């Protein structure tokens, strides 16, 4: 374990922030306060955070429809995100994008994406920019198990390898694409696929923050050193439905409760760092309070914030037209 105390605190803070954010959005959606399609990341926090902890603003990520966690892990403003999800004028995207399109290019967050498999090609582009302009940056595509099958993803693996791009493909395999099990929809094996495209590939326990962090460190280092792309196949679980409103009847009774009880990534992290004496329980408790408050404040602000006015309907289509 090579994380500094500061990094550990940051990791815990971000995971708690994501969890609090998603739990809050879940409640607000259930109460009918949030419209549209909303996909929550709760349960998968160790992946986004374990990867993004290695990144700075000059590094880029592309996310999926399930983007809130990646946004927070990449440093997007939680207040701006909440406002965006509520469709407010000063949301991170002016209320025009909503949950499925939150982005902050200044943070290297290239957007959640409503198109499954939409991100990997974009990440090849961000990696190409880094390589061409020699910024030292890397680019990471988060892709679901369902998205792993999409042709755009396969093409991107090939392109990243052929162009020797500083890229990492993180397959977040939460066991389902909507109601379809990944054990059915993903033929063969994602680690083997990465290898078949000529790149190092590693299976990762996504409940274990430290394992994610370590695998990501290795892959990102490789990319930064000019040694090309890698694949990580991260196994994890989502706690809520595919989207808000999903009754999840396709899951086994008790499936989620068992995961929560046995290997919740935040609980595992907490146990590990306290047992090892790396962080104090009250430090962690403070973070829990703090992040809960941050999200609660963001919610209050978002509810109070005004929606965009008519004048905004036709702006931002072009830089100039």
């Amino acid at each position, binding site marked *: 374990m090579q994380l500094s105390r500061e990094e550990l605190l940051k990791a815990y803070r971000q995971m708690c922030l994501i969890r609090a954010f998603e739990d809050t959005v879940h409640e607000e959606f259930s109460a009918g306060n949030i*419209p*549209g399609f909303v996909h929550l990341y709760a349960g998968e926090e160790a992946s986004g955070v374990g990867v993004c902890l290695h990144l700075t603003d000059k590094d880029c990520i592309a996310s999926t429809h399930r983007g809130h966690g990646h946004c927070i892990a990449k440093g997007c403003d939680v207040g701006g995100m909440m406002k965006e999800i509520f*469709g407010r004028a000063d*949301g991170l995207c002016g209320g025009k994008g909503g949950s499925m399109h939150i982005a902050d290019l200044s943070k290297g967050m290239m957007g959640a994406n409503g198109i*499954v498999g939409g991100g990997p090609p974009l990440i090849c582009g961000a990696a190409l920019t880094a390589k061409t302009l020699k910024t030292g940056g890397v680019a990471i595509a988060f892709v679901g198990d369902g998205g792993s099958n999409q042709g*755009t993803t396969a093409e991107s693996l090939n392109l990243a390898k052929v162009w020797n791009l500083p890229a990492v493909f993180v397959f977040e395999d939460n066991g389902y694409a909507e*109601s*379809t099990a990944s054990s059915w929809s993903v033929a063969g094996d994602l680690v083997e696929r990465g290898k078949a495209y000529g790149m190092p590939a590693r299976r990762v326990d996504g409940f274990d923050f430290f394992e994610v962090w370590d695998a990501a460190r290795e892959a990102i280092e490789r990319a930064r050193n000019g040694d090309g792309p890698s694949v990580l196949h991260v196994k994890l679980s989502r706690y809520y439905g595919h989207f808000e409103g999903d009754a999840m009847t396709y899951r086994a009774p008790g499936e989620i409760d068992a995961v929560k009880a046995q290997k919740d990534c935040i609980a595992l992290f907490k146990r590990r760092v306290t047992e090892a004496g790396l962080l104090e329980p009250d430090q962690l408790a403070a973070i829990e309070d703090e992040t809960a408050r941050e999200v609660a404040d963001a919610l209050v602000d978002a509810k109070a914030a005004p929606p965009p006015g*008519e004048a905004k309907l036709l702006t931002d289509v072009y830089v100039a037209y």
Partner: protein
Amino acid sequence: MAKKSYRQAIAEALRQEMERDARVIVMGEDVAGGMGAPGEDDAWGGPLGVTKGLMPIFGRDRVLDTPITESAFIGAAAGAAATGLRPVAELMFVDFFGVCFDQIFNQAAKFRYMFGGKAVTPLVVRTMYGAGFRAASQHSQCLYPVFTHIPGLKVVLPSSPYEAKGLLIQAIRDDDPVIFFEHKAMYDEEEEVPDEPYAIPFGEANLTREGDDVTIVAFGRMVGFANQVADKLAKDGISCTVVDPRTTSPLDSDTILECVEETGRLVVVDEAHPRCSMASDIAGLAAQHVFGALKAPIQMVTAPHAPVPFSPSLEDLYIPSPDKIEAAVRKTMAS
């Protein structure tokens, strides 16, 4: 005859055609759902539940869940259609056509012409379109003008539950590739729908209102809006014909042109973006063929040349509304 929702009407059409013809199969992402999963089978029926209940009747051999690979499975539907099945494939949202359009427009749509008339490709692609669901830019588009542009495709826009059932049955029985557009904001709309199967022919417009002053041509969900406006304006003494072309390709231009000749005024209502749209298509048709009968400028009511915004406050402004249609009718009456 009973009241049925647009969703139920579609499901009934699918079920009845599957009963009638063993070559009809249904495929798409989670059209049954629960594939490989430990819980309930047939858990989803697509994200909005349209196909739920088919799999228990027809089994997994005829109701096929797919991985998220639209090119592969829409293309498979095209290939299956060309070799003897009659597949109904679900492209969940039409917004996803950009990952699979080649299999639709270069393959299925062109087989017959490229192969000198020897191919028959009875493919149906069902897909959701339209704004109003707060689903933002990548899940709210209309895009039927793009499909209408392509020779070899037929394009259907059912405007009510009754229309949906009859047009879907026709689509499945039709021997050409058909793209069937379901408006996601209409699934819960209800009306009387016959229990028995019936087919509504393509290329025959439906006059939902008949009047003397203005012809309103409207598509899909906009037909209902146009009818509302016609009813309202009737009270003010403005008498409207409302034309629901039902299919944009083939297009019943004869009926449209006749109506325009009778009324001398034309308003076209198209939920899609304005450029190279059905609005301009119909306007161009009239300006070429019944120019002499026109008494006033043609009015087009469309969504703006902008992506669909997420925020409800903006999306409500975005969609062509009864108010905008009414204003367009009043404008053409005033000139």
